[in-house]
């Protein structure tokens, strides 16, 4: 398998505060990779580096074998931030149209993509509603639809299912598997253990250190624990 993301000895500090401490990580094509860790562990800083919004203090990030940030690579990544970056005054369709045109998607193709993405997040009945009237969960799903609009080969999702009920969460994960089948690589950050269990591989982050990488099964096995939660705690304790 080809690594689609390569992080090489990446550190990041804001002033004196060190947020990422020497992270090296390869993420392979076509896998769903979960970044698991408590709030403030550095997950968001890490993914922001992968989308080009942050630059490492030392080390480098390569995405599609190109050192980030690079505008060519940026257009191949779908990113969903932790906060819903939506224009409340506009309808869902107008939001999607706007972002689609930023990626050069226009006309019939744009229409088709909007329809398809809204179906994935099950919002197709609310396409022409003004976003300020959306509920929290609907906004989250619309953000996801926007991240999908230009059919990115790499999808980076920062806590995508916060505020989404279990039924919908399940269906969203089904769509992740569907995308994976189409060859899309997905990176998700989460602090929810049962969600982490659904990933192909996991990276556990704590205080800016990458404390363990492996399949959920292997991580549990190596710590002799039945749940990821226990495994996470034992890794953290052993550090």
């Amino acid at each position, binding site marked *: 398998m080809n690594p689609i993301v390569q992080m090489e000895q990446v550190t990041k500090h804001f002033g004196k505060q060190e947020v990422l401490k020497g992270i090296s990580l390869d993420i392979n094509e076509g896998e769903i990779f979960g970044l698991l860790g408590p709030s403030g562990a550095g997950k968001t800083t890490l993914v922001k580096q992968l989308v080009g919004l942050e630059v490492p203090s030392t080390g480098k990030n390569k995405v599609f074998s190109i050192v980030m940030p690079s505008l060519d690579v940026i257009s191949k990544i779908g990113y969903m931030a932790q906060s819903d*970056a939506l224009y409340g005054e506009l309808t869902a369709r107008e939001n999607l149209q706007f972002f689609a045109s930023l990626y050069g998607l226009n006309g019939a193709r744009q229409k088709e993509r909007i329809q398809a993405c809204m179906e994935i997040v099950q919002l197709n009945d609310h396409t022409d509603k003004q976003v300020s009237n959306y509920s929290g969960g609907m906004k989250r799903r619309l953000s996801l639809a926007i991240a999908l609009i230009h059919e990115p080969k790499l999808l980076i999702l920062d806590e995508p299912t916060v505020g989404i009920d279990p039924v919908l969460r399940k269906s969203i994960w089904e769509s992740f598997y569907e995308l994976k089948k189409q060859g899309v690589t997905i990176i998700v950050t989460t602090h929810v253990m049962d969600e982490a269990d659904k990933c192909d591989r996991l990276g556990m982050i704590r205080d800016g250190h990458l404390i363990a990488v492996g399949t959920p099964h292997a991580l549990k096995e190596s710590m002799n624990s039945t749940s990821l939660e226990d495994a996470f705690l034992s890794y953290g304790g052993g550090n």
Partner: protein
Amino acid sequence: MRVIALVKRILKQIVRDKRTMALLIMAPILVLTMLHLVFNGENYKPKVGFVDLPTALVEQLDDADEATVNLYETTDEAQTALKERDIDGYVSRSGTSLQLTLEGSDPTINGATMKWLQESLKSLNPDSSAAMLEVNYLHGSSKMSQFDSFGPVLLGFFIFFFVFLIAGVSFLRERTTGTLERLLCSPLRKWEIVIGYVIGFGIFTMIQATIIASYAIYVLGMMMEGAFIYVLVITLLLSLTALTLGVLLSAFANNELQMIQFIPLVIVPQIFFSGLFNLETISDYLSWVGPLTPLYYGADALRNVMIRGYGWGEISFDLLMLAGFSLLFMILNILALKKYRSI
């Protein structure tokens, strides 16, 4: 094209936000109407030119501290000085009586000059009344009101103020809601964001300026000697400056309230140098600030067109300065966006 997508989105947002749109258009109209109804008018030391007057008369008139007197050989010289605004008016002989020619664009100055001359003449010769004085105007007329004189400055100021505030706040929101970050995760270039904002708001500002200027001129009857199109060009450039400055300063504000805090720091001082108050009575410690403020040029150009009826020749320098300010602020904006994405 990506810029067009951005422009379309901004226009849609403005149209959806009815209240903001109303503020941009109605607030200046309301304030101008109130000023029109309210305004009245202070002590000024006139600068007067004397053309070929008897030496005795000049000596007697020149002794007072109340006016600055310049001497000219011919009427043409005085006329040139008047056009350059070196003097507020000049006194010349016309047959047996005296003739006063005023620059005329500021009623306060007209009044002060006339009053000084009439009083000085009276003290020289208590018998003859001031009736022997004949008054002419280079611009304006005796009918020009305070509102006509301040109107162009206020028109420029309100457009500047509201565009600054609304463009600043909408860009601030783009930052605080995370949409700016989202834009920078797309292939949109930094300059495209800035240009998109300039065009999007520029289109709206054109409409705003047309409505407000037409209202002031055709409904309130503000004095209008020059061509309307010049007024539009000036207000457009002035609002571009306001827009780019607003967007730039929004980078230093964390919320809407902090944006409002820039008003007393950045907007209000510009009023002092806009020509609303006489620039020559400002203390030397401060007077150098004027040429650094965009409104200084905008207001000067608007007065030149609306009161003096001038055209390209006289306003091109002001327009150039405004365009320069916009360009400078745009470049700084692009540099400020580096904080969010280094490329």
